[in-house]
């Protein structure tokens, strides 16, 4: 069972439907017991960083998520969900994130069109099982802020938008995708499948 965390923001159904289509059991939940019982967690996210953090705090799930991550359960943050893993974001202010990964979330420079929106290709960084057969394929990005990770060795794929942008990250059991795999056609489905297969 994969728990998709419902904390009041984001497009949860698309992720759920994509997992269902791939044959994975999934549940959209905001209940601590269900997250604890799951074999993997997905933290989705569409929206603004502060709003999402506020919702996470209100939901009372932060300790639960941290505990599950510490125990080694695979967790995948999608788009804003990935950004929330980091220490700090400068989206319309300066806000603390979950601090599971080291690095910051910053805005694209002004000479670029913001948001970075559309299909961009994945350039392999560190080889990893989750990215097998993916190099060079296109996935769908929609974001105005991007992660500046402290360690490049945590980046499995980059994408190029004037600058190098981390697209898929991994540190042990923590995974992040800056794009929307559930909206990235066949390539996105394969990445979700690779994540889901970690628990089999």
């Amino acid at each position, binding site marked *: 069972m994969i728990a998709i965390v419902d904390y009041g923001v984001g497009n949860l159904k698309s992720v759920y439907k994509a997992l269902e289509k791939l044959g994975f059991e999934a549940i959209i939940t905001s209940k601590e017991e269900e997250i604890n019982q799951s074999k993997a967690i997905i933290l989705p996210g569409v929206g603004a960083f502060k709003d999402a953090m506020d919702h996470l705090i209100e939901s009372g799930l932060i300790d639960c998520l941290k505990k599950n991550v510490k125990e080694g359960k695979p967790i995948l943050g999608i788009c804003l969900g990935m950004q929330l893993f980091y220490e700090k974001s400068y989206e319309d202010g300066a806000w603390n994130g979950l601090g599971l990964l080291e690095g910051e979330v910053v805005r694209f420079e002004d000479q670029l*069109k913001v948001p970075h929106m559309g299909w*961009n290709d994945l350039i392999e960084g560190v080889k990893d099982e989750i990215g097998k057969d993916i190099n060079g394929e296109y996935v769908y990005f929609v974001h105005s802020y991007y992660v500046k990770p402290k360690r490049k060795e945590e980046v499995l794929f980059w994408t190029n938008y004037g600058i190098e942008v981390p697209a898929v990250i991994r540190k042990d059991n923590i995974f992040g995708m800056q794009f929307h795999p559930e909206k*990235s056609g066949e390539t996105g489905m394969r990445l979700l499948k690779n994540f889901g297969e970690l628990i089999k």
Partner: protein
Amino acid sequence: MLTKRIIPCLDVNKGRVVKGKKFKNLVDVEDPVKLAKFYSDEGADELVFYDITASNENRDIFLNVVEKTAQEVYIPFTIGGGIRTIDDFTKVLRAGADKVSVNSAAVKNPKIIQESALKFGRQCVVLSIDAKKNEEGFWSVYINGGRVDTKMDVLKWAKEGERLGAGEIVINSIDTDGVKDGYDLFITKEIAKCVNIPVIASGGAGKKEDFLKVLKDGSIDGALAASVFHYGEIKIKALKEYLYENDVAIRRIK
């Protein structure tokens, strides 16, 4: 490299896709979910669903279409038509939409852009502008399906929309819409020059060359069309190959 987007637009009325000329004379075309899936398989980069009735009783039918599409189609889609409140945003995003487009409601109440951008993030707020050169000879913003001239300057409104928090602008030229004689290159490119968010051209695609003309210099991020795709006059896969051969950055379908 970020690619240019090809975006079929599905105008939905009472649960069916329709297409009219210059917003009038609506003709029934197809089941929206079926059509959406077909386009996604053909290589569409994104879809737009436009609720052209936007009356309350048909709203639920429309949301139902959105939900069904989200179950079948794994590419992004935008919902437009009849979006007036934050609650409307929440409903369509919850139903599975990725972006929400506001048009008349944003003109009447610009705060909706600001509030929705703060709540859901700028990236899901699309400002859709119906533009037309009016009787006085300047490019004006029209509302209510192209029936009312607001006398607002199109470029000023685009800039204001960006300032308020819109993450993308769709510029629909009323005069070229449905006529199939090409996008209005002038107003589309003028807008792209004055804002720093993605700009999508809409209204007027009739042949492959029209897409090339609007996308080739790189300033426009995508091209939206309806009837040429619905009636099979242009196949998306062939269109994308044509654009690729003409040096437009494009996501090709294997």
